[in-house]
């Protein structure tokens, strides 16, 4: 149980990477953008992959009537997520210590993992909702109003995961370092739970 508890202490700490590294990354390449424009999604706000990328993405998107990219104060998520992550890290580490001193069982480890997973899924759902709004809620006075072959208005929702071709742009959306660190950390806590469970069975 001591080894499992140590993992439970270390695992949540990986989530601290989210304060430094982006959670998600969306890259937009086009013939006239051989160096693609890029958007790094941090838990506290959006940043350009290069310094002026946000300004340049907004500049291009105004032609098709998209909203400008949100600033941290424009979305409650950017204020709330850092707090939630902080609380979850603190709780996780605390559970780990309590486990180490035999105060709680492995079930608490799995409980933390399950709660974090649910919040992660909710977070992804919320993120996707924003992508839908960003890509479909277009200015009715847009300079270029494009339609699909079937006559419906064209929308520009970036993919949640993977690559799509959007007009002249190749858009690729993938988890970034922060998400991978979070994944590793959560796997460590799951392992901690599993080890704790095996330990209990042995006794």
């Amino acid at each position, binding site marked *: 149980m001591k080894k499992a508890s140590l993992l439970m202490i270390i695992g949540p700490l990986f989530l601290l990477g989210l304060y430094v590294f982006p959670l998600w990354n969306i890259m937009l390449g086009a013939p006239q953008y051989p*160096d693609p424009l890029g958007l790094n999604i941090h838990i506290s706000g959006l940043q350009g992959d290069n*310094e*002026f990328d946000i*300004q*340049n993405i907004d*500049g291009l998107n105004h*032609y098709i009537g998209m909203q400008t990219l949100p600033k941290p104060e424009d979305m409650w998520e950017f204020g709330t997520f850092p707090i939630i992550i902080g609380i979850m890290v603190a709780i996780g580490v605390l559970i780990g210590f309590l486990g180490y001193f035999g105060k709680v069982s492995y079930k608490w480890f799995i409980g933390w993992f399950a709660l974090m997973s649910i919040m992660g899924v909710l977070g992804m759902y919320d993120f996707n909702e924003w992508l839908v709004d960003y890509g479909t809620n277009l200015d009715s006075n847009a*300079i*270029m109003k494009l339609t699909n072959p079937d006559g419906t208005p064209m929308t520009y929702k970036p993919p949640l995961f993977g690559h799509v071709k959007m007009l002249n742009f190749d858009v690729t959306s993938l988890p970034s370092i922060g998400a991978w660190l979070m994944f590793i950390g959560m796997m460590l806590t799951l392992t901690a739970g599993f080890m704790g469970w095996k330990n209990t069975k042995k006794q």
Partner: protein
Amino acid sequence: MKINNHLIVTMGAALMLVSCGQQNQSSNGALSSSAAEKVYVAPGEQDEFYAFLSGGYSGNLTVYGLPSGRMFKEIPVFSQFPTSGYGYSEETKPMLNTSHGFVPWDDLHHPDISQTNGELDGRWIFVNGNNTPRIARVDLSTFETAEIIEVPNSAGNHSSSFITENTEYVVAGTRFAVPVPQRDMSISEYKGNFKGALTFISVAPEDGAMDIKFQLLMPGFNYDLSHPGRGKSHGWFFFTTYNTEEANTLLEVNASQNDKDFIAAINWKKIEEYVNNGGGTTMPANYAHNVYDEHSHTGTTTMKKEVITVDPTEVPGAVYFLPTPKSPHGCDVDPTGQYIIGNGKLSADLTVHSFDKMIAAIEGEKFDGEAYGIPILKFEDVLAGQVKSGGLGPLHTEFDGKGNAYTTFFISSEVVKWKLGTWEVIDRKPTYYSVGHLMIPGGNSRKPFGKYVVAMNKITKDRYLPTGPEMEHSAQIYDISGDKMELIYDFPTHGEPHYAAGCPADLLAPKSQKIYRLDENEHPYAVKTPTDAKVVRDGNEVHIYMSTIRSHFTPDNIEGIKVGDKVYFHITNHEQDFDVPHGFSILGQNTSELLVMPGQTKTSVWEPKQVGVWPFYCTDFCSALHQEMQGYVRVSPANSNLELKWSLGE
């Protein structure tokens, strides 16, 4: 590749044995296919070297790639350039100020890239204006002219703008001897009265700022070309002279009478020390110093009022003359600093002086008389050797860093490769036609990149499709990586290239600036956000603070302008994206357009003469809605009381 080349050479040799007449034709096909591979830079690929070719009478500097011969940019330096508005915009007009007023043109000859420890460092490139003597510094991160300093007491600024091996000085020598200071006197009293000023301009290591340190007032010969000592000869500078006869008329005959002219060897370190210790004479002067500030995007002119002159006879041991046959033109120093080559343009031979022998002769005080108090060394004492080339009219020499030298021959139209030390001729190849300078990247530094040589010709004739009597000049690229030179490409240049300078692409490409930062824009009329855009009247001057972003001007409707107003359009480009300039022009403006780079502010003056509603537009196809990037200015009669009004999207 190696095997192929051997085969070709063997085949060529075999064919020569069989039939001399067919040799050229037979091997041409094979050679040209491998030449094509050597110069072919596939779409999307980039060149291996930058080449900066002087534009001569275009007044500007052109940037090419090697080996492709593709032109990338024309950098405006001494000439007005309507393409960008250089010399037309209010910000850049001061760059062309001189003591003779606004001079919108010059004759740009000899680019030289800055060096550290005798190797190219790629910070700046210096160029000279020959006609109204000026030296310019071009920044190699923006590829724009950063500074121009006028050179007083000089005329025909030709033995310029060569730098010492740590860019301590950029040197400007006068081709024409003139009265110093200038005065009203008889031309026929030239001999013994005119002077030849050699100017040493210090370069500040941190920002490149130029300042005249001293002018050496030499006898009234014509100082043709120059190069610095390097390595062991660092601290010396060498100038070729002609017209040591001091003729003032029909020079083609009268300046060609002496069998030998001189190479002047200047120990500038000694003179620098002399000046630092208070030596020299401060002389009244009047010359312009024009500096462009990258943050205010504005050039300013300061008139300087004095210069320190040095009499060479006052600094013992600082100046010597090396007799050199036949009116030498190019003055070139090999990468080790040991050999000083005088290209005697009226001769078939090259004269090579030895630095070690020169020092020994000076220490042994073996003089062969003097000229105006300056000791003349004995020709035989300083001579290292002579290259019996068999060519005619040697002009300039460059080096490959592998012990070989390459010399152009104007009259016999060829490049001759020869060996330093043994003076034997290794190879010769024709040029098309009448070659002037040649350039090997780094070929006049301690570390040449001996892969290609570019020969720049004075005569084009039949090389390209004819374009009437006037044609661009031709240049040829030779592969010099093997024992024999191989002609691999031929391309037209712009203006009249004299000298050129080249360097590996990776020295400059990574630091080439993409945009100017808007948040660092310190132009007094810049607008940082579109909401700051405004129109302000001050008497009959109207200042329009205008911003641009894809695809509109802010403001784009302006009323309240009157006939007789002087309207300043201050355009700030709000883009912060690479390669998105916006242009500006308005109907009837008596000047050029502006091309404004991202983050930059430029100003155009418009003096409307007719009542009406006049359009302006973006001249650069900036975006899909470029064609919509336009606006109107309403011009009312001079006595109108219409208030100023401006708007966008109302």
